[in-house]
């Protein structure tokens, strides 16, 4: 599939920090893309450049096969910023209509779409309420609707689940899957790794304004796996020492966590146990969670201390 968005050597420097320092990656059409990074890594700046709010200092953005022109392409993008924003005193229906019209829909189109989405997410009864009457989760839902209403090709969601209860979070999650199936590309920015693992196909991790990881979730996990396996036997083994592995951790007299030494394969470990005539109940590889990878990578870069570095 073609790339809907390509970033080439993007840079954006502020007076006190390099917010985005030479980042390139591309996003395939129809994928759910995770943009990860610790606080202050430059995610928001990056997103603001993709939404045309900021201009990059250098580098280029290609959108949908052409150079990105904010004024024209902006209607094909839906952006839900991390800090939610709605007019508190405005009626919900009118607010959704207004935001849709700002995206370039005609009033009639906007009305049809708003009705459709309100019905879909069971929000019809809210039409004449004001945002100040809504709970945080409810306004979150409204914000989501206003973001995807004009059926943009690219949807950017910054922490879309914060403040949502599990039921509504699932509702939104299903919508995200649905949108992706219909060909929308979704950029999903968060630091909740379990959600990323569940939803995203492709992730990029930024820290200190630089890209430090890029790949599919499976690739990344493979890259960071440490050859650790969990094994459970039907009876305690007679001996448990072999040059092929070392035991990291014994959970009971029948189950172990082992790390395969370099130069050996998992089959050799299995053979060792099979040769002992003990039944093997299970043998599975322990892959690192994204959370662990995240912490491992980000800790290494000492992200916190860079916040106020001086540029010369």
């Amino acid at each position, binding site marked *: 599939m073609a790339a809907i968005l390509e970033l080439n050597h993007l840079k954006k420097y502020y007076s006190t920090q390099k917010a985005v320092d030479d980042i390139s990656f591309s996003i395939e059409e129809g994928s759910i893309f995770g943009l990860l990074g610790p606080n202050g890594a430059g995610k928001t700046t990056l997103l*603001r450049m993709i*939404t*045309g*709010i900021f201009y990059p200092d250098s580098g280029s953005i290609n959108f949908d096969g052409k150079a990105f022109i904010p*004024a024209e392409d*902006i*209607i094909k*993008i839906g*952006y*839900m*910023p991390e*800090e*939610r*924003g*709605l*007019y*508190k*005193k*405005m009626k919900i229906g009118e607010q959704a209509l*207004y*935001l849709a*019209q*700002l*995206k370039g829909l005609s009033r009639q189109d906007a009305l049809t779409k708003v009705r459709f989405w309100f019905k879909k997410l069971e929000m019809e009864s809210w039409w004449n309420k004001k945002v100040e009457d809504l709970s945080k989760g409810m306004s979150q839902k409204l*914000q989501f609707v*206003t973001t995807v209403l004009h059926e943009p090709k690219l949807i950017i969601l910054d922490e879309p689940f914060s403040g949502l209860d599990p039921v509504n979070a699932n509702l939104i999650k299903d919508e995200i899957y649905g949108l992706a199936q219909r060909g929308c590309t979704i950029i999903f920015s968060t630091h909740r790794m379990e959600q990323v693992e569940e939803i995203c196909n492709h992730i990029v991790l930024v820290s200190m304004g630089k890209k430090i990881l890029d790949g599919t979730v499976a690739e990344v996990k493979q890259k960071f796996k440490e050859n650790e396996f969990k094994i459970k036997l039907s009876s305690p083994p007679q001996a448990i020492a072999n040059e092929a592995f070392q035991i990291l951790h014994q959970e009971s007299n029948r189950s172990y966590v082992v790390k395969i030494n370099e130069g050996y394969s998992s089959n050799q470990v299995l053979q060792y146990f099979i040769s002992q005539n003990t039944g093997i109940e299970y043998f599975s590889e322990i892959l690192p969670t994204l959370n662990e990878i995240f912490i491992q990578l980000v800790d290494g870069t000492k992200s916190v201390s860079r916040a106020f570095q001086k540029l010369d």
Partner: protein
Amino acid sequence: MNKIWLIARREFLSRVQKKTFLLTTILLPLFIFACYGLIIYFTVKNSDTFKIGVVDNAKVFGGKIETKEEIQFLFLNNLSPEQLKEKVNQKELDGFVWVPQQFDMAKGDTITLVSGKTVGIIKREGIQKKINAALEEQRLLSSMHLSKAQLDSLQRGNEVKFSTLEGKEENDAKAGISFAVGYASGFLIYIILFIYGTMVMRGVMEEKMNRIAEVIISSVKPFQLMMGKITGIGAVGLVQFIIWIALTIFLRVILPAIIPGMGETTQAMQPGTAQAMEAAKSSGVMDSFLHGLGDINVGLILGCFIFYFLGGYLLYSALFAAVGSAVNEDPQDAQSLLLPITMPIIFGIVIMTKAVNEPTSGLAVFGSLFPLTSPIVMMARIPFGVPNTVPYWQLILSMLLLIGGFVLTTWFSAKVYRTGILMYGKKPSWKELWKWAFRQ
């Protein structure tokens, strides 16, 4: 352009559809009028008559001191000071003057007024004037051996009329009306700049605080958002202004019909305060006002008023929007950034008060050309007549400068706004604002 219109429409409707809008639009001027009415009523009515007993043993007053409504002189001869004191204690009199027999006007002897309570400064002055006028008349009559009729004819003043080179006669009513209309329009512009400027600033701050600015800026350009807000609120101002004009016309037609005696009462209320009133004594104040309005060019004034209202509003509201975008939650931060914006407005009102008295002075001309003060000052000069007091070149130059001024402030503000609306954290310094504006 379409998006600016959408934003302006929302800004306009969200304000006009509020229940409080109609209420404040109609009630505010009524409230102000009512306040003025009460003030006038009380300044006129509060004075109870002050009765002064006069015992003129030296016959210096000739038996009569002219009585003003609230100051009454009663000649009570053959009473001793003690008897007078008794009358004051019994509240039959408020005070008394006892002139001893050996009183000599020529020597400049003093006359003493004894009163129960302390006499207020205005009343003191009134009493002093009346007594001195009576003494003066007696002195003239006795020393010059004139008759009362001769004296009256000597003292009668002649009317001075004012006319321009073109031979157009300018009556005093016109000068008075020009003064009043000039002052009122200048002041109105001043208030409008503040009210609507602050409204724009508060709106921008609200959008920034709600974080909706970021959502909207991902759909429209910051400039469009700013201009939409300014246009929408400007339209609110215009509608409010039109309602006020309609209301005034309505009141002018309706009030005289309801209260037929209004003309006379207002005249009685302000006996000869302004010269304009003097000229109109016979016909009543309302008529003279109408007459004066006929002399000045109402259409031109209204047209100019709308132009200067819009020009001044656009010029200042852009600056107010820039300040709103730069500050955060703390309204105190806004105060210090607002100072350089409010200063020229205040200067404007100061120059305006001079300009209504001297509409052709250098200061007035400068103030009416300089775009930061021209909306206020020029509006104060225009009622004095356009080709006469304000030459055409001044009017046109002032308008062009104002247009140039608002293009410049809008450009500057748009730059500050673009950066400021997405900046959270501490209040920016002037240096930073400058950088936002002049760095790409």
